């Protein structure tokens, strides 16, 4: 995957040099030309086109922004509620992701989403202990969100 990106950047750089112009626009044109070349050669390359993963990454970012926004509203409502009638607690969740990077990314996203903090990761590295603002009601939606994150991360990191 990264070799395709490097190849693309190399073609863009070469295009810029051949055009004898050191400008961002020539680089962008070269990048698009390189993308077209790699697209035509995609059947000879071992991995699938890296654009697919870049798109998956964009989708992950979109999902994250959405969650950040909606759960912020939830937490702000709890901050402003006259009686603090929510019940924070710690629950555990087994993740199906593998590899340090994927789990780190998942924990980062969970912790950035308001209303949940990853407190500890179990011995085997698969079990997340999550502190949540509102256990009985919030947990169900939270778990759903986390599974959506998991799926999006898998699309980025694993070749499907």
């Amino acid at each position: 995957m990264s070799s395709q990106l490097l190849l693309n950047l190399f073609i863009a750089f070469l295009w810029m040099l051949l055009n004898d112009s050191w400008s961002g626009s020539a680089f962008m044109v070269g990048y698009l030309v390189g993308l077209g070349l790699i697209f035509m050669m995609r059947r000879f390359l071992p991995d699938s086109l890296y654009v697919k993963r870049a798109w998956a990454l964009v989708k992950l970012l979109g999902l994250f922004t959405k969650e950040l926004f909606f759960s912020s509203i939830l937490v702000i409502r709890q901050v402003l509620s006259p009686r603090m009638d929510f019940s924070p607690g710690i629950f555990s969740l087994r993740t199906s992701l593998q590899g340090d990077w994927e789990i780190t990314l998942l924990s980062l996203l969970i912790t950035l989403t308001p209303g949940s903090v990853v407190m500890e990761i179990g011995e085997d590295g698969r079990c997340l202990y999550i502190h949540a603002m509102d256990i009985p009601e919030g947990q169900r939606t939270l778990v759903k969100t986390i599974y959506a994150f998991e799926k999006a991360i898998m699309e980025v990191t694993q070749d499907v």
Partner: protein
Amino acid sequence: MTVIGEAVAAVFIIAGSLVSILSAVGVLRFPDVYTRAHAASKSSALGVLFSLTGAFLYFGLVHNFISIRLLLAIFFVFLTAPVGAHVVLRAAHHSGVELAGINPRDDLKDDTDCSCPAGD
């Protein structure tokens, strides 16, 4: 164009300030260290996101200057804020700070052999 750009940027910056104020209120009102860390780290991350996006839009739309540095600032805040919250809460739990007694559920304490279920 300039006026619209300024207005959009102002809306973003005001939203960021409001979120920051609300997170400060949350730090004061929430009952224990765990919930306070939520307010301190998350809402302020959103506040920083809004304010810096507003500044980015202002420079981009009004002065025609794309500031990559502001985007990098957002990136680094988002990279470091959750680590801070995680470490504070982990240290608090390790040194035995009790949860506020509204809900006794504490899987991390009860479940020492990590036999956690697949999320119910």
